[in-house]
């Protein structure tokens, strides 16, 4: 056994490692509640405007690249799966499997960002990037531009969150290599997993808001 696990003690304010791990989980859940409100407020502004300019925004939203968004939702759902399998592997002490699933998670995240980047490129060619090369299309009015502002703010913030997630998973890989993630104490990995899955959930709501509503 690596020595780190044998000498692992809870921090001074905790009685047991279990208490420490569960407290960390509670902490990240509370943090995710604030994230819910953060993205929820953004979606709130979007729907206020969408309520006011239903046709113009629906018109603008049809220019969002549906296949990119759909591929990405698939990628993220899959990454949530690989993440949970990584946690299971950690809890059950299967280290090679753990590393494999973590690498897979990072890979899926990176592909997501790649697809997103390509989508931005397509958007740029379509002249829908506000403040860069936006050209108002007939029938959209100023509300069209507001849609694209929302689109870039929302997807941009999501991409920042996802990049943070990728960084955290890489950090976890490093800790795994140092033997610090063991069946006795893998709370850090669980915390990262919760964050990762939540970033996935954000996309579950952004996806229909941006790509689907008003398509028909």
């Amino acid at each position: 056994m690596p020595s780190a696990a044998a000498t692992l003690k809870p921090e001074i304010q905790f009685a047991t490692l279990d208490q420490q791990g569960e407290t960390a989980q509670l902490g990240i859940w509370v943090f995710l509640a604030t994230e819910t409100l953060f993205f929820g407020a953004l979606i709130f502004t979007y729907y206020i405007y969408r309520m006011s300019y239903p046709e113009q925004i629906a018109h603008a939203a049809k220019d969002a690249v549906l296949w990119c968004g759909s591929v990405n939702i698939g990628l993220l759902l899959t990454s949530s799966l690989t993440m949970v399998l990584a946690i299971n592997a950690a809890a059950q002490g299967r280290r090679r499997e753990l590393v494999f699933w973590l690498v897979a998670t990072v890979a899926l995240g990176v592909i997501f960002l790649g697809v997103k980047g390509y989508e931005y490129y397509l958007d740029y060619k379509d002249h829908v990037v506000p403040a860069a090369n936006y050209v108002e299309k007939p029938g959209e009015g100023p509300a069209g531009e507001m849609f694209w502002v929302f689109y870039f703010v929302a997807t941009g913030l999501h991409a920042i969150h996802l990049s943070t997630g990728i960084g955290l998973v890489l950090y976890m890989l490093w800790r795994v290599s140092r033997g610090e993630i063991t069946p006795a104490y893998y709370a850090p990995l669980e915390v990262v997993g919760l964050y990762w899955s939540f970033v996935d959930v954000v996309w579950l709501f952004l996806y229909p808001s941006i790509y689907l509503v008003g398509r028909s």
Partner: protein
Amino acid sequence: MKVDAKEAGALPFVIAWLLMVGLVGLSVWTAFLPIGVWSPIIEFTVAAAQTATIFILFMRLKGPPSLKWLAAGTGFFWLLFLYGLSMTDYTTRSSWPS
């Protein structure tokens, strides 16, 4: 089927994953049907179902500490305040939109 991290196999998660990907398909399909207001309703029901799956199964909302439920619910619950009370203004303001 066991879902606790200590003893879970891959199977329940793979099944849930397949279901969720299937739901995405349903969502995209209904988006193109001429069913008016029903299509966003279906799309968001799908999103809510996927969220519930991820929260409960993948993020193990069921396990200890039990307060996780409270924390997870609070964010969504508080959003209701923002959405609901703002609507008292936006649904009745006569000079909006301009």
